[in-house]
């Protein structure tokens, strides 16, 4: 894969995205390794999960790419057709870099920003580890490293993109299951790929990019087969900012009730204890 990519666009930068195509993934985990290698992230330990060959479980502060191993019933007719235990689908998970990102909106320090490439980036020199982004992410991506004290997640290889390089995971992917490029071009490529897959009989292939929910679409979308829920992809992810209006309304009502209650309480209590109050 070529190292560079062209950048011209509005304000000099292109909005970039990942298209992760699970129908091309071979589960080699090269993306996980390349990501750790480039970003210098610590190892996760060597625990056996018992869940297929996935011993990582989920993305987190020390895992920014994570290959999911989704086992299905045996499915003769596609792939190798061996009547072996199960058929596999692999899908490399990553921070979704939401259009409306819960973590970015929630961050009280302004540490989490939107980069010129449209990615969501945690500035490590600003983050103070308040942990609010952790509960604000509808995909459970960002996590606080309790040893370090700060929150971490995929940077969308901001440093590499800055100098015109493709992110480490997409560079390492041997099957081009992870595609990187301009967002609208990738959305188009996804549609073409879906048509191709549907033509081949994989009618359950679909694009996961919840643009109708309050996250308003992703900058890292996925082609998956079957129900996205078996890949731990929520059907209706909501950016928690959608809940603010009701919350603040309730807060205002509560504040009004306290003022009214205190006013009523002190107005109707004639027996003031002035004698006890004076020194």
């Amino acid at each position, binding site marked *: 894969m070529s190292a560079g990519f062209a950048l011209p666009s509005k304000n000099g930068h292109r909005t970039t995205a990942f298209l992760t195509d699970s129908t091309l993934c071979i589960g080699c985990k090269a993306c996980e390794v390349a990501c750790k290698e480039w970003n210098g992230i610590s190892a996760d330990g060597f625990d056996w999960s018992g*869940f*297929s060959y996935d011993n990582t479980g*989920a993305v987190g502060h020390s895992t920014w790419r994570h290959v999911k191993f989704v086992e*299905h*019933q*045996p*499915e*003769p*007719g596609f792939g190798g*057709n*061996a*009547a*072996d*235990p*199960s058929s596999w689908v692999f899908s490399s998970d990553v921070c979704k870099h939401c259009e409306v990102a*819960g973590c970015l909106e*929630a*961050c*009280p320090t*302004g*540490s989490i920003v939107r980069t010129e490439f449209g990615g969501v980036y945690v500035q490590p020199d600003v*983050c*103070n*580890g*308040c*942990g*609010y982004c*952790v*509960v*604000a992410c*509808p995909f*459970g*991506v960002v996590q606080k490293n309790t040893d370090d*004290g700060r929150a971490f997640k995929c940077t969308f290889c901001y440093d590499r993109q800055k100098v015109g390089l493709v992110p480490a995971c997409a560079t390492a992917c041997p099957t081009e299951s992870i595609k990187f490029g301009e967002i609208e071009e990738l959305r188009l490529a996804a549609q073409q790929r879906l048509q191709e897959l549907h033509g081949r*009989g994989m009618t359950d292939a679909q694009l996961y990019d919840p643009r109708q929910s309050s996250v308003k679409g992703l900058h890292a979308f996925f082609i998956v087969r079957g129900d996205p829920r078996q*890949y*731990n992809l929520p*059907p209706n992810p*909501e950016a928690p900012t959608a809940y*603010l209006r*009701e*919350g603040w309304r*309730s*807060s205002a*009502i*509560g*504040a009004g*009730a*306290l003022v009214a*209650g*205190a*006013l009523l*309480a*002190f107005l*109707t*209590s004639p*027996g003031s*204890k002035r004698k006890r*109050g004076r*020194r």
Partner: protein
Amino acid sequence: MSTLPIERTRTSPEESREARLLEIRREAETRGIVPARGIRPAGAPFPQASVETGYYGIHLLKEPQWTAEIPLYFFVGGAAGSAAVIGAMADWLGRDPALAQKARWLAFGGAMVSSALLTSDLGMPSRFINMLRVFKVQSPMSMGAWTLAAFGGASAASAFAKLAERRFGCNFPVSIIGNVSQFVSALFGLPFHNYTGVLIGATAIPVWNKNRATLPIHFGMSGVQAGVSLLELMGHCDSRALNMLGIGSTLFETWEGYHLESQNEPALKPLKRGVSGLITRTGGVMSGPLPLVLRLLGGSSGSRRSRRLRRAAAMCGLVGSLLTRYGWVHAGHSSARDWRLPLEMPAQSPVLEEMQTKPNMPAIRAG
């Protein structure tokens, strides 16, 4: 559809696989597609990622990573904010100057303790000042940090200025500072006493965001009760106004308990079951019906019995308020671990039930 009965007892696994493969190839050549199911091997079903079981039941949401300081901060902040409002009201209406002064100290002390608790929870406490780096309306955490800063400053100024005024007589600039800062302290005390409900309501945690419309009032009333109870224990357990406020907050907390218990929603399960359910329910009883009864019985006659009952109600309410905060945060942890909720899966999946009740499926099944 041609099927080939294969049994593991007669043929080796390799043979049976080869036979099945041959059959599939034959069928694929003649018909172009093989609609049959494959073989279910011994030990099946293995844990599978499926529409029924999610991704091996691994929860997709992250648990809150706040330390135990945070629910304690919710408690202290709620009490301090409410005390500022109550104290200011008592002062403005000229009803109870001693109560007002104690409320100012409570607000000031609470703000200081709150700041300490919040800072010690940070992953990098040395960077606490970064909280005031930006002003973000869409972040309740940012709003809370600014509110705390304003509230803390005003509460300190009002507590000391009013003290000076009472000690050294009415000095013009000091009394102005005292009155203005008391107003500012009460003004910011209003959002400060209940914004924590907005804070946890605007998250991805189901049990919190499902209750976003009542959590701020709930946390606010819990804070009012804590503030009232502390003031009573500080020597004002015959104040009728405080008892009225206490009765008001216990009434609301009783309603809130009923409101939560009467809803049969899967997302609210952590408030009713397990350790978090035990804490929230105990907290609910201790800040709702129990102190309500004690307060109604106690009244504010100033008799020994009345004071004893009021003191009991205050202590009960304090513990209840504290438990409520810990219960809700604990429930947030359980809720994040419930993988079914964000995936919108029914609580009891029929397929999963079948898998659990029939562990011994046929070792090999073809067709």
